[in-house]
Each structure stands twice: as structure tokens, then as C-alpha cells.
């Protein structure tokens, strides 16, 4: 059973040049500038694809503009399980997501942006999958389909096939006040289980793990086999690092940086100061994955791994771990570092040797967007 949540005001601030839609004041100003929320129409476009093959499908949703209207407009049958409060608040989305999961929805479609993804993630249990219909201003989280029709096609496949694979994807969001001051530092707020369509019969020609989780496991195993005794490993946040911790048999804080030495966690959820103290005690190396769809290694979602920490580690400070597909998903864009220190960024720029499995690595370019001249030569 699929569900739908529409964030009625998602995207309202974008066309109005307000760098986001969070906050009552911004929403009022956007309204004054003649902005019109587009989340509803994009949700209708997605559901229209479902309706084309399954015209009688029921969709569990929230009342009125939070979903019910869009379900009706697409010609499908709404089952309303949540009514929004007045006035609306972000917790509406979270509570609606929880209500959908409670009645047994196994895939929640949500129309909005990063803020909506963050609120949905806060309300969904890990067993419920979610997929974003892109309608927001900010979409740093790799939890969105490429377009409304693609989201609808995936939802239809979910209903038809009952067994689409899912992958853990990060939910990132930027503090919009920062964004309006032209400073972009998305934070990692959690993860969503997002369905995807693996290549089908013809994919069997390849030995590559078709299953994304299997690919993550392989990359994590590659990292685990490269760890050496006597070295402090600073494990960054994210799903791939959680898998590395699983390979090592240690607990991992999902959003924090944990220090592992000789197979034991010596500091969990370390601050920058604690990391500096650990690095001072002996040889150390940061182990990070790619955060979000923008390709950041450092400076987004793992700010504890600061320029000072990288500097203190010394030579070859960072091991990058990611399945090949994460590099491919960057579509040729380089990996990015932005530690806030031009010297450190320049040292990290060039190429990274990314660990993709126990006996496989990939060489991939790294840019430092904040400094000139650190762009790798074409």
C-alpha cells in the first residue's frame, strides 16, 4: 500500500528568490511576491502515472492540501488518516508520516524538498520506505526521484512487483538562514529507505552486485580489510560508515564521528576537540564516505572532521570509502572538500583513491570549491 504526503508550501520560496520556504515569515513574503506552491501539481503528475496502470488504487494520505486533494486530482481513491493542525507546522509532516506507517503503508511518497524529507524521516520507522517527488527548493538529500513521472513509475513498479530493492539514503538539510547568508553547510539529519530499480535481466551479464546494499557491504569490507593495528580510525557519519562498523563488529553513532583503535571504539560521537586529543596520541586516519548527492567528503555533515583535525593527522589523512555506484551517480562531477582552510583543501584536492571493495579502488577527482587553482587538470 502506498501513501502520499504533500508539503503544501514546499518550493514556495524558490521562485521568489528566498532560498527556501522554511518559516512563516518567508512563506508570507513568498505569497506577497505571487509565488504558488508547486508541490501539489507535481504530486498529481506522479500519481497520474500510477493511475494510468492502476485506476482503482487506494492511496493513504493526509487531509486536504497535504495529499487528499492531489490523490483525487489524479483520479485515485484517498484514504485519509491524518488531519493537519491549524495553523500548520513542520510536525504535521512528521505526524502524518507516522500515521501512514501505523496503518501499514509500506511506501510513502512525499512531495517537497530537504525540509520535508527531514520531517518524513523523523516520523517513519526504519521498515517503511519513502521516495521524494522533487518539489522543493533545496534537494541535497539523495532521496528524490529525478522527476515526478519517474517517482510515479517507481511507485507503480512498487505496487506491481512487491519486491523492489531499497537503499539507505542520507537526509541532509541546510539551515536556510545560513543559505540566505550564502553559506551552505548541510547537516546530516538521518536516513530514509529509498526504493530503486536495479538493472533487470540484462544486468545479470555483470558480476557487479546489482543490489545496492550488497555494494555498500563490499566497499565497507574493503575498508575493514585495510585497517591496521595501532592506528586510530576516525569513522565519519553515514550509511557506508555504519556498514564499516558492522564489519568491525563495533557500535556506531549514526550521525557522529567515532574513533576506533584495534577493533574497539575509544570515543563515540566525538567533538572536534576530542578528535584532536585522540589524534595527538598516535597515528590516525579519517575514514569517510560521500555525503549526499553533491559529492562532499569533508565539510558537509561531518564538520567535526575539521581542517585542524585533518592537519593534525598529517600525511594521507583520509581514506574514502564508497560503492562505485556512488561515484557514478555524481555524473562526472568531482568529489568536494570544504574544510574552511584553503591550505588543507588544497592538499586534499587532486585525486582520491576511493575504496570500493576488498581488492578494488577507483581514482576519482577531488575539487575544493572554495579555493581557486585546486581544480584537477583536465
Amino acid at each position, binding site marked *: 500500500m502506498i501513501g502520499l504526503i504533500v508539503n503544501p508550501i514546499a518550493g514556495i520560496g524558490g521562485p521568489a528568490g528566498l532560498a527556501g520556504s522554511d518559516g512563516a515569515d518567508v512563506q508570507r513574503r513568498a505569497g506577497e511576491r505571487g509565488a504558488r506552491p508547486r508541490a501539489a501539481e507535481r504530486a498529481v503528475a506522479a500519481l497520474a*502515472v500510477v493511475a*494510468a*496502470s492502476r485506476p482503482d488504487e487506494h492511496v493513504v494520505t493526509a487531509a486536504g492540501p497535504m495529499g487528499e486533494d492531489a490523490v483525487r486530482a489524479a483520479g485515485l481513491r484517498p484514504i485519509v488518516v491524518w488531519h493537519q493542525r491549524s495553523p500548520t507546522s513542520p510536525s504535521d509532516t512528521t505526524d502524518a508520516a507516522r500515521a501512514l506507517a501505523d496503518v501499514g503503508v509500506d511506501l510513502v511518497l512525499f512531495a517537497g524538498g530537504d525540509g520535508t524529507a527531514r520531517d518524513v524521516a523523523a516520523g517513519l520507522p526504519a521498515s517503511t520506505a519513502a521516495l521524494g517527488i522533487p518539489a522543493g527548493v533545496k534537494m541535497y538529500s539523495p532521496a528524490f526521484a*529525478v*522527476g*515526478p*513521472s*519517474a*517517482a*510515479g*513509475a*517507481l511507485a*507503480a513498479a512498487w505496487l506491481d*512487483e512487491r*519486491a523492489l530493492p531499497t537503499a539507505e539514503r542520507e537526509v541532509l538539510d541546510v539551515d536556510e538562514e545560513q543559505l540566505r547568508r550564502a553559506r551552505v553547510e548541510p547537516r546530516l539529519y538521518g536516513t530514509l529507505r529509498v526504493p530503486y*530499480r536495479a*538493472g*533487470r*535481466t*540484462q*544486468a*545479470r*551479464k*555483470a*558480476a*557487479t552486485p*546489482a543490489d545496492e546494499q550488497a555494494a555498500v557491504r563490499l566497499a565497507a569490507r574493503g575498508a575493514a580489510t585495510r585497517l591496521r593495528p595501532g592506528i586510530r580510525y576516525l569513522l565519519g557519519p553515514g550509511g557506508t560508515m555504519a556498514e564499516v562498523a558492522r564489519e568491525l563488529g563495533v557500535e556506531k553513532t549514526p550521525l557522529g564521528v567515532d574513533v576506533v583503535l584495534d577493533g574497539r571504539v575509544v570515543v563515540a560521537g566525538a567533538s572536534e576537540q576530542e578528535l584532536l586529543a585522540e589524534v595527538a596520541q598516535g597515528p590516525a586516519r579519517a575514514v569517510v564516505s560521500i555525503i549526499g548527492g553533491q559529492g562532499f567528503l569533508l565539510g558537509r555533515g561531518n564538520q567535526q572532521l575539521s581542517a585542524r583535525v585533518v592537519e593534525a593527522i598529517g600525511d594521507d589523512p583520509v581514506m574514502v570509502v564508497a560503492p*562505485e*555506484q556512488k*561515484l*557514478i551517480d555524481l*555524473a*562526472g562531477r568531482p568529489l568536494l572538500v570544504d574544510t574552511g582552510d584553503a591550505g588543507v583543501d588544497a592538499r586534499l584536492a*587532486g*585525486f582520491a*583513491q576511493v575504496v*570500493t571493495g576488498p*581488492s*578494488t*579502488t*577507483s*581514482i*576519482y*577527482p577531488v575539487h575544493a570549491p572554495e579555493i581557486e587553482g585546486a581544480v*584537477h*587538470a*583536465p
Partner: protein
Amino acid sequence: MSLPIAPKPAHRRFHQARWDEPVIFELSTPGERGVLVTAVEPGVRDAVGDVVASLPEGLARRTPPALPEMGQMRVLKHYLRLSQENLGADLNVDVGQGTCTMKYAPKVNEQLITTPKLSAMHPLQDPADAQGALEIIWRTERMLAEISGMDEVSLHTQGGSAAIWANIAMIRAYHEANGEGAQRREVITTIFSHPSNAAAAKAAGYDVITLHPDADGYPDLAALKRALSPRTAAIMVTNPEDTGIYNPAIREWVDAAHAVGALASYDQANANGILGITRARDAGFDVCHFNVHKTFGTPHGSGGPGTGANGVSAALAPFLPGPRVVRDGDRYSVHEGGPQSIGAIGPCHGVVPNIVRAYAWMMALGAEGLRAVAETAVLNNNYLMKRILEIPGASAPYATGRRRIEQVRYSWQELFEETGISSEEIGIRASDFGMHYWTSHHPYVVPQPFTLEPTESYSKAELDEYADVLAEVAREARETPEVVRTAPHSQSVHHTHHDDLDDPERWAITWRAYRRKYPDAVGA
């Protein structure tokens, strides 16, 4: 039908045959026979005795094989029906299986290989009685040596990946012979090289480093230099890559590898765009291979076994797989591999019928003809690319605006973003028009990929027909997406459920396993 014949519509109203033919085991009727073998006459029995008794204990069956029992005519009908439920290479415009070089394999060459002078030969026959076959092997190897510029060639392997395996096995043996086997543990490849290079290197125990293309879509020389070190055993690259892009700095790549003591291995599985134009040895490569069943006009694996050709420089020649055919004056003899040979990868001399087909194909064309093959294949490809790029929603990522060699990996990403129709769904719909279509090797680096390779065999009219079909399906994706999404509509089989392929518990690759795993389905 009445005269005059009605004009044909713009798009072929193809309809695949559907016979609902059972599995052959289900057609079995106990006691039915295709051939009634005459009983052994008493005189014969007296003369030879009980022949079965002379079989070694381990070879004699205790129970007869559980073969299907049926009459000849029913067997014939069974296989003819199955053959009609195929989109065979000789039926459709088979340009949609890019990287496979689905060119026309001339039928006249089938007559050559069915002559008893060849088909009755035994691979272990005394070389004195096999001079003709050995001469053809030797001459074919020498022609491939001339085409690649390499010093020695072996036709011993039976397919492309076996030949790639021979490449890395020779490289490993070379470094071990030089005392550098323990030091050189890494092989470098590119993400658009054929994945068998990475797979073979991994199987040979190497760590594999993959390079991504540079900002312009070309193989990244700076990334190569970052990856090369005294640990590098070899670079293993395909050129042109699967994108159809020819590495303009290929000589620098080889030189950079040699500078750190590594070898350079060239995957020329598909050399259709470079025959008579570039040569592996001229770019400095130490080893290379061809897929004879791609470039040299012999049928593909599904239509018969393939053949690989391994070419090497003089320094690598001692490591070639064996046995080798050697010419002494005007006589030919068979030499087992020397002390440094990597040994046999398959039995005997490889797939001799394919070698004869390739020999006939090359001799019919001559040197000028081979070059004309490459020129025509490249021209066809660039014509088709122009037609495809005129279809809204199709693009050719990387090296934008440049010409390609013999194939192009295209993308439907724009169309997908607009309509939600994937490349795979387009391929299934294309089969409704009688056209085969393939996406890409994994990983899908190009989003929503499709790979077209027209070869030299197809006429402009047929390339136009193929492009017209894709244009029509793209139009449908926009205007009547349900038609595409629910395709195929005129095929024997509508959908295969690949969940069954993901779970080894559900596989049934023999009839015996099928009966064991699905007893209710067969009523056993």
C-alpha cells in the same frame, strides 16, 4: 491479398510467433523413438563380443540416461518452433547490441567448415595428416599479427574473456619470471573498458584500480599517472572504449605504464573501427587480443563457440598458451608450450571451424577490404548517431559534439526525466517492432543507457528503419506512455520475472532440478 500489393505502413507490423511449446522433457512419450537402431546381427556379435563389457567400470552407466523419447518429426517441429520465438541476428536489424559487433557472418563460409575434410578431422590427428588445417591456423595467426603489429599470435582461446584471461596470465607469468611477481600487485583499467579486464585481473589475484573519465569524457591521463607506481603490473584498457571514444593519448598511456615497469594490455575485442588504421604494437602495447567472433565475421557465442586471438610482443612470446602451430620450411608441426608457457586454457587448437571462417573472411576481403570494413563501420556509426541525436530526449554523453569510432553509448536520461519511461522499457517496446535493443554493461555509468553499433553490414535503409523505430517509441513515451510501459504486445514472452534469477534456491538450470524444486508444476 489482392493486387496490386498494398503499400507497407511506415513501421513494420511485426508479430513474433508464439507456439506455447512445452519443454522438450514434457513432450516425452515412453517408447517413442526417432531412430530404430537395427539389432546387432549374430555374426557381428560373435566377432566383437560384448563391447559394453570392455568399458572401464567408472564409465559404464548403471541406468539409461533420462532422455526424452519422441519421434523425429516432433523433435524437428519442437526446435523450429523455438527458433521462431527468437529475434535472431539474421532476422532483425541487429545494431542494438552495441559492443558485440553483430555483423553479417557470410553463409558461404558455413559450407567450407562442413566439408568432411575439416569436420572429420580429430584434434589429436598426426600433424602429417593435418597439414592443411595447421596451415590455415598458422596463416590466420600471421594475418592477425600483421593486423595488430604484434610479433606472435595464438588462436588457442575459445572466447573473448578467455583471451583476456590469457592476457593477464601471461602478464603475471612475465613479472614472476623477472622476480617482480610479489611487488607488482595492481592492475589499472578504465570504467569504460570491458568489465572482463577488471574481472580477469581480480581472478588472477590482482588489486584493481578503476579510472573514471576526465572532464571532457576522455580517459584521464592525469588519473592514470596518479595510479601508476612500482606496484603496477599492467594497464588493461579497451580502445575505443564502450562509448565509442578513441583515447587520443593512447601512446602516452602506454609510455607512462612502461615508465614504471608495467606492461600494457590492449582489449581489442572489438577492432571493427580500427582495422587497417591503427595497430596495437604501433602504440607500444605488449599484449592484445581480438574476439574473432566480433571483428572477423564468425558467429557469436549463442550461435556457436567464439574464438579469441592473443597477440604479444617478442618479449612475451614465451608465455603464450599452448599448443602452438610452428612452420618449418613448408611443413607445419605442433609444439606443446615451452617451459614459460601459461599452458592450455582450452583443449588443443581452439575452435578450428571459427578459425577457418575467419581465414575465409579475411582472404575474401584482402588488406584493402579490411580497411574498407573499418571505414564503412565508422561511417555507418556516425550516420546513425546523427539520426539518433535528432530524436528529442536522446543524447550521447561525453566528448560532446565529437565523432565516435564504431559505436556510441547513448542516454535516454532526458526522456526518462520527462516521462518516467526507462531505457529498458524502450528496449522492450522496440522488440514489438522486431528490433533487438540492449542497454549497457554494468555499472550503468551513462544514465538510462543504450548502445548501438551498426557495423559495416547494414545499409542506410536499415539504419534509417532502426532510428525510425526508436523515434516512434520515444514519441509514444511522451504521448501514449502506457503503450510503452505495458510492452511488449506482440512477443512470445511478455515479461521474465528476474526475482527467480536473484535467488539460487529458485534456480532450475536442469530438468532434474526443476522437477525437484517444483514438483507440483510437473506433476511428478
